Structures are given as C-alpha cells and as structure tokens.
C-alpha cells in the first residue's frame, strides 16, 4: 500500500493502523500531531484509524520559531 507521508511517497507492507505507522517510525510516545487527508486524527483514535491506499498523512511536532 502506498501513502503520502509528510509529502513523500511511502510503501507500507499490508494493512496498517496509524498507531502501527507511528510505532514503525519510532515516534511512539513522542509529542506529535497527525492529520490524515487534512483532518486531525486525535491521539485517542490512532489505534483504531486504518490507513488506506493514497492517504495523505502529515506528522508534525514543535520546533523553535518566533
């Protein structure tokens, strides 16, 4: 399955939930926020959110800025 992750194509092996993707990326427990297809997916729903072919996923965090 192919998704767009932070603007780049990414291949996932088989089905994946958002929580599994975060785990694979080493971001479990990190302070991030996630959008799928421009809609926020609250942290509480990561485990139930099944990713689908072509989903556009954005994972963001806080950085220095003014």
């Amino acid at each position, binding site marked *: 399955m192919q998704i767009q992750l932070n603007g780049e194509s990414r291949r996932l092996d088989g089905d994946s939930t958002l929580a599994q993707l975060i785990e694979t990326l080493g*971001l479990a427990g990190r302070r991030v*926020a996630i959008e799928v297809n421009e809609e926020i997916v609250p942290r509480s729903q990561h485990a139930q959110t099944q990713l689908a072919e072509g989903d556009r996923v954005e994972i*963001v*965090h*806080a950085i*220095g*800025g*003014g």
Partner: protein
Amino acid sequence: MTQLKQDTPLTVAGRRFASRLLVGTGKYRDFDETAAAIEASGADVVTFAVRRSNLGQNPDEPNLLDVISPERYTLLPNTAGCYTAKDAVRTCRLARELLDGHNLVKLEVLGDEKTLYPNVTETLAAAETLVADGFDVMVYTSDDPIVAKELERRGCCAVMPLGSLIGSGNGLLNPATLALILEHAEVPVLVDAGIGTASDAALAMEMGCDGVLMNSAIAHARQPVLMAGAMRKAVEAGREAFLAERMPRRADASPSSPFAGRING
C-alpha cells in the same frame, strides 16, 4: 485630574500573565541556549512553530517541548511560514492536537518571503474561521488601525502589529500609527516583530502597549542570555514609565536646583 494609572497583569482571553515580554524559540544555537535565554527573559508566554517531523532521522533527538515545558510556560503555537488562511487554520488545529486541546494561538499569514509582511485578507479570513472553531487568536498584523479594529471585531483576543519587518531589528518605524491602534483598541495590543534592542521594547511599552513579542532581538544578539535580561528590564521599565506618566515636554530649561541661596546671589 484624571486618576493615576494602576498596573494590572496582562490578561489575554482570560489568562493572566506576570510578564509582558513574550518570546520566541527560533534562531538559537541549541536548546541549552534557548532555555537559558527564555529563563533570563522572565517570559511566561513562549511561542514556537509547527513543522513536519523528521522521519527516520534520530527519533530520539530532544524535542523543543522537553525544554520549554508546557507545565511551566504558556505555549503559544504560531503559524509562521503560512501564506494562506487554509494553511494557517490547519496549522492551528495541528497545534491544538499537539498540546492536548490548548487553544491559544498566534496567527500570522504572510504575504511574501522577502518582506514577511502580513497578508491582511488571508489573516482576516483565518481569524474568522479560528474564532468560530473555538481558538483564542493573538494575531500578527500590519500597523494599520482599521485592520487592527477589524481583527478585533472578528473576535481576536490580542492584536499584534509589527514595529518593522520580522527579523529586521529596525524597531518601531511608525509610532504614529501604533499610537492610533492603541487609542482605539479594546483588546491588548502587543508589538510583534521588528524589535532590535532594549530601547525599542521600552518605547513600545512607554507608548502604552500591553506587551512585546520578540525572537531575533534576543536570539541574534551576540550574547542572547544577557540581552534576554536587558529586554526583561526594558519591558518593565517601559511599563512603569507609562504608568508613571512622563513629565510634560517644554521648550525652555527648568533648573532642578533652587534659585534662592546661591553663593553668587
């Protein structure tokens, strides 16, 4: 005689802050310097940006929010880098998720990369959407008194005109328009952008601004931690001078020592 001015804490959307200096977290050498400068600034409100996470590279690297603790500071996510209302609204929603529902944001929608001047039409549109969505919106804007009032009418909880271009350090280039904004505003007015050194911050506060937000003036000083302390004092001094109400200007001299009893009298 009008009443003497009394100080009250800066209050933005019902939140009270002891310090009237708000600071950014960009352009520092490292997180240690960021933390030390913010500590020295005495700021309560600290702004940060939202960006895509670096995937696959050092997922264990320290996170800004480990350094600037949400328990200690009021975090103010900003929409720096957004050029459309849509991107700014998305960024605010991501920030609210990032901070577990915290709804205070700094809205800025920029016009172009050379000036980073606010795009006022996009800013107005974004402000309306964000307020309707339950955000408390502190808004970066041009120093136009009409636009400031329009943003206030759309429900923004603070209006933050630029003193001069973001990161330019040119200070307050148009104090006359800032004075007009201050005269008519019914929400806090903070100068956001353009502060270069302590006297710029002091001047903004002496004019009656409710606060000052800065980043580069501290981070790009040769000694940021020292400058952070200078800015804390400048904002306090400017505020006290505003409350004290300065002496009237006069054309002629007025001796401070008594005329009578001079030895040459």
